[in-house]
């Protein structure tokens, strides 16, 4: 075991392995004082934290999150705090939606077997009004089992007192009674849900234009913060703010971020906004954010994560070594600063009196690795058995590979790991965010002459690319709710008719088929195609590749992509990505921009048939070809041709009987 591995903390939700409290102690204390101030003054506040790449921003957030995790059951007089970590890998026009989804995910997240943060809100609200004394959680369990009407009555009291809107009150009630939690989580996250699911939960869902949906998300976030109440402060920490910038000099991103922090600051009374930004981003923030936003972002001050001095460096090394078991500890040299030699340790501080933690850990990891091999060699062990597990270990997100000999190898391994992870975690609910954030990055890489522009007169067209030949618009139509989809298509028809776009691309997701009864929706899609719109269905692989691409680029921009202790410049990664463009990504760009040779095979009837077959197979995953022909009322040759023409979507077992199925169903 190399205790110096894992120099990067990928998420504050990771469990803490080792922590040196004296490092960044002052800033950490400021965070705690900030929470106390919010609790006491009942006014929201902001803390701005700077740090260079590898200085430990996410590590600090993990310490804070760990501290805020309750170690005992909720009780009437026990102060608690809620926590949200938002990694801003998103489009500047979707910040509120990303914040909403992240907040809901984090509040539903079970922590070390304890209650979710939503349940903690519930307990605190009960604690404010219940008359009984004693253990709060046991009382709640009793009420749930023996007095549900009484519990409902209390919930109504809370809703009235907080002036909750109907939807939030109903959602709160579902949480209290543990009902429909999966759909409820999706609803709270802003996912489009089928009418049946909404009906089951007795909740409504309005899907307006892009701007309206963003505004709805803003309202939901503010409402949820209000639900938590002044007795339960909420820490919302923003990380990777740099990733919001699609391209260098992108002013919209910083402006949008400033607006979000200001809204949270002014429209809530129990939120501490902790914004973590790279030191190199400091001047961009000051140049592009409004002064008033910046003031709110740092209303409790701007703080810096200092690199480590000699003493802190020794403490960190010692803490990491303490992870070794007793037998391992006995074998290692005991000189201070080991595995670095005294001279090497001194050399680190020769030019500058300080060193970033990540750089120190990376160097220690390399030296430890060398020592490990030598000591095994001295003891006569088989070196291949030592080296193999290290080399074969696939780097995971946030784990710096110290075994990658070249940057090329590192990129390849990192890409493979990231891509596999994204493919496994791919869900249609994330498609919109992936495309809206990732596609502009991809287009910038492979078609740098194409500009991303905005057009306020096309509110349902999320992305507009401009070339010398005209404008191409991309609209994400991945709603599972057919009413919402229908409304979107209807508006798109009107917007397409304005002639502001030379080409309109409607992006659908195969995994969200149109329901069998959505005739109106299907008809609208046909009509859009008649207006020269193009319907495309990116494959799961293409979406996973796009997700991996945006993830890696965001990490690079935020200084979180590290190799041998050094931070990899976004340009280096971009060069590699262009030279090693993943399969499907070039096609994706060509399809979107309508470059020659793409989407030629999809005629109007083809799209209609593809949608119909997809809908059918979504309900009957393994369907004999004959039955498909009968249901679709199309000749067998046509259905067979559709399956053969779209092997990325449909597969067919030759039989007999021939069986049809969806490609993604097999993958899942």
């Amino acid at each position: 075991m190399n205790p110096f591995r894992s120099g990067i903390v990928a998420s504050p939700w990771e469990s803490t392995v080792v922590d040196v409290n004296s490092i960044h102690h002052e800033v950490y204390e400021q965070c705690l004082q900030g929470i106390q101030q919010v609790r006491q003054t009942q006014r929201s506040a902001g803390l701005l934290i700077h740090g260079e790449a590898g200085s430990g921003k996410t590590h600090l957030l993990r310490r804070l999150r760990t501290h805020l995790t309750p170690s005992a059951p909720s009780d009437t007089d026990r102060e608690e705090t809620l926590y949200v970590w938002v990694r801003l890998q998103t489009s500047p026009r979707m910040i509120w939606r990303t914040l909403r989804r992240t907040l809901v995910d984090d509040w539903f997240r079970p922590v070390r077997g304890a209650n979710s943060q939503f349940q903690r809100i519930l307990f605190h609200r009960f604690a404010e009004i219940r008359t009984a004394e004693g253990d709060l959680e046991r009382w709640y369990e009793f009420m749930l089992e023996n007095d549900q009407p009484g519990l409902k009555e209390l919930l109504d009291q809370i809703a009235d007192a907080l002036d909750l809107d109907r939807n939030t009150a109903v959602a709160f009630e579902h949480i209290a009674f543990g009902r429909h939690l999966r759909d409820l989580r999706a609803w709270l996250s802003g996912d489009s849900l089928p009418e049946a699911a909404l009906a089951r939960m007795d909740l409504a869902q309005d899907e307006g234009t892009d701007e309206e949906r963003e505004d709805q998300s803003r309202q939901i976030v503010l409402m949820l913060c209000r639900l938590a109440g002044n007795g339960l402060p909420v820490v919302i920490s923003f990380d990777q703010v740099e990733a919001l910038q699609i391209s260098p000099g992108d002013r919209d991103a910083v402006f949008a971020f400033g607006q979000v922090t200001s809204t949270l600051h002014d429209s809530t009374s129990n939120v501490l906004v902790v914004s973590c930004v790279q030191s190199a981003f400091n001047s961009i923030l000051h140049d592009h954010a409004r002064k008033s936003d910046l003031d709110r972002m740092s209303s409790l001050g701007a703080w810096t994560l200092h690199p480590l001095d000699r003493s802190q460096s020794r403490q960190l090394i010692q803490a990491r070594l303490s992870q070794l078991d007793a037998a391992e500890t006995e074998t290692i040299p005991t000189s201070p600063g080991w595995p670095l030699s005294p001279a090497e340790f001194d050399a680190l501080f020769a030019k500058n009196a300080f060193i970033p933690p990540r750089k120190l850990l990376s160097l220690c990891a390399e030296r430890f690795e060398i020592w490990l091999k030598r000591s095994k060699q001295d003891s006569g062990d088989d070196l291949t058995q030592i080296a193999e597990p290290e080399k074969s270990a696939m780097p995971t997100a946030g784990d710096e590979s110290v075994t990658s000999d070249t940057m090329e190898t590192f990129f390849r391994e990192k890409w493979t790991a990231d891509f596999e992870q994204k493919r496994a975690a791919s869900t249609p609910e994330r498609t919109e965010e992936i495309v809206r954030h990732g596609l502009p990055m991809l287009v910038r890489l492979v078609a740098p002459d194409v500009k991303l522009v905005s057009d306020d007169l096309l509110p349902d067209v999320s992305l507009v690319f401009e070339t010398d030949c005209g404008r191409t618009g991309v609209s994400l139509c991945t709603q599972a709710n057919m009413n919402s989809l229908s409304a979107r298509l209807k508006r798109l028809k009107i917007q397409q008719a304005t002639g502001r776009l030379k080409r309109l691309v409607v992006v659908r997701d195969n995994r969200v088929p149109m329901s069998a009864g959505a005739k109106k929706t299907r008809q609208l899609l046909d009509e859009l195609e008649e207006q020269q719109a193009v319907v495309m269905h990116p494959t799961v692989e293409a979406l996973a590749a796009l997700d991996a691409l945006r993830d890696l680029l965001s990490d690079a921009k935020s200084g979180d992509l590290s190799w041998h202790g050094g931070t990899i410049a976004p340009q280096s990664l971009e060069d590699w990505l262009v030279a090693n463009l993943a399969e499907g990504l070039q096609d994706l760009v060509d399809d979107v921009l309508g470059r020659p040779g793409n989407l030629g095979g999809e005629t109007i009837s083809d799209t209609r048939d593809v949608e119909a077959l997809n809908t059918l197979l979504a309900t009957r995953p393994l369907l004999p070809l004959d039955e498909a022909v009968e249901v679709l009322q199309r000749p067998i040759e046509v259905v067979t041709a559709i399956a053969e023409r779209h092997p990325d979507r449909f597969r067919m077992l030759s039989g007999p009987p021939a069986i049809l199925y969806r490609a993604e169903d097999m993958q899942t």
Partner: protein
Amino acid sequence: MAKKVPLLPLSSEARESLLQAVGSSREPQLAKSLAALLAPTHSVTEAQVTPVLEELVATGDLQKYALGKGKPKYWDRDLQELTRDAVLRAIKESAAPLTAKEVAAKIAPPKVAAANVSAILDAAVAGQLCFAFPSAKATGKPSFWHQDLREIGRQAVLKAAQQAGDPFTANELAGRLQTPVKLSETDVTGILEETVAAGTLHAIPATTAKGKPRYWTHGVLELGCRAMVATINTKGPQTLTNLKKLLKGIGDAQFQQIVDRLREKGSLVAHPPLGTAKQEMLGTRPPSAVPYLQEVGLQLKRIVGLLKGAHVPSDELRRAVVQLLTEAGISFGTSGDTSHLTGSPTAAVAETVDLVGAMKRIEPGAERGALVGARELRRAVRLPKSEFDHAVLELARQGRLSLHRHDYATSLTQEERDELVTDGDGTFYVGMALRPR
């Protein structure tokens, strides 16, 4: 035999010939001489030519010079002006001042009397065209030169004084001067006294009662400082009492000032009492640690021997000793101790510019560690780039602030990069934050 041709009378055309004769003459001529100079075809007497010459004088074509009791002479040039030019040229071309007689001797014909030359020179001195220098002898004649000998002397004295490593007397300095005219001790003394009065040089008291006054570019305190450092360097670290004895002629107050000044500059280091000595010593370098640690070393050797005898593992001993030394304040790094840097020129720049103060002005939160952009600080202090960069790096080396790198500065434009701080080895820093003290 040739027939005798009669001479022609003085015609009007002959006037031109007369003027030509005057113009070709190197000096004023008598009317008789001019009549003789006319062409032999003319039969002209002195009486005939004189009215014509007088007429030419009246029209301004000729000048008439009445010299003593003799007959007047005639010339077409201004003899006074010519003499004046010749006199001034003579003293300008001379390598040293000249008397009027010496000048007269150097002038080409027409010869000018010394008295006339003297009058011309006096007028030139009054018109600041040359300088007069009285003779060293009471009866001697003054000499004249186009350069101010006193100013030359003053410059020479100052130059020699600046080059002098030690105090000097006027006589010593006079011997070192390189001037066109040798300056006497009195001349040099006069110049030195003037310079002292102007504050350019300092007067240093004579070393003995009969000694002559000395002069130097530094004052008495500096002389004392140098003498003290030289004494210590020669004789080794000394107690204050010994130094007072060794530095004769310096009063108590001045002695104390000298000691304080040297201590402030770090040129004098106090050595803790060693062994049985009770007084601290003063040296010019830190004391050698060896004699001070000798006793501890002997004790350590003894205890290590005992512990080894008790089978304490070597690793544990090493760890304990390292810990002991670390706790005693000994860093095992070479770069940790940056106190030696505080006297460096860059440190001085950092102190002068007060970068820390500027950081606090730009960012009110800087005191508690808020980041200050390199660009903003650079614009605030307006130092040349290299000077600013060095000053910032110096403060970082001293541990007073931490620098924050820009990890991919190559993606920036040259202009943007220039606003960052660079160490010259390819590392760029985007900002800095004060470290808590």
